[in-house]
């Protein structure tokens, strides 16, 4: 069985590529995090607003 081709990771040396591969695996884009937080906040806010509205009725 043929080994899988090496993943396309930038870097001039083996250790640089390894380090970059690790970083890629654990890095999350800030935009994505912010987008997820905004979406979760939107749902929470709406639920909270509706619960409060009920309490004040």
């Amino acid at each position, binding site marked *: 069985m043929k080994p899988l081709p090496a993943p396309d990771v930038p870097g001039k040396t083996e250790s640089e590529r390894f380090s970059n591969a690790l970083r890629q695996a654990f890095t*999350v*884009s800030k935009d994505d995090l912010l987008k*997820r937080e905004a*979406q979760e906040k939107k*749902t929470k806010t709406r*639920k909270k607003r*509706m619960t409060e509205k*009920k309490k004040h009725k």
Partner: protein
Amino acid sequence: MLERDHELEEVCPHLKETPYKITSPKDPRYNCVAYAVGDLKNFWYDVSIKGYYWPPGVPSADTLEGWIKVFEIHGYKETLDSSLEPEYEKIAIYASETSPEHVARQKASGAWTSKMGKDIDIEHPSLGCLEGDLYGKVVKIMKRKCQGGKRVLE
């Protein structure tokens, strides 16, 4: 398992007068879109974060167009009829004025099943019982032939 979820009834008030059933415990790993397509391992939303998934090339998960495209990819086509047709499975997309909010899937019995955000799954007899401030209204019904005579997760 609890018979009713009072917190849920606060935000979906029509459920108070509806004989719905809680069919699973809370599970934050998947959402309504994932549940509708039969994936219980990913949260379908378009961010590149582990545990989240959105099909490549599909418009934003914040748009109705994006949600419709997801279901088109899975073989669904738009229809106006939400009644039970035994050879078809159907989904119903709810949307507010600004964005899609929820999707429910029809079961072989004709009842509907929904994953409530990161919380529980419920079975509900009608689509109207989830309409309201939280999810908006049903704006799109889609259907596809049951694949191999079977429905998603049944």
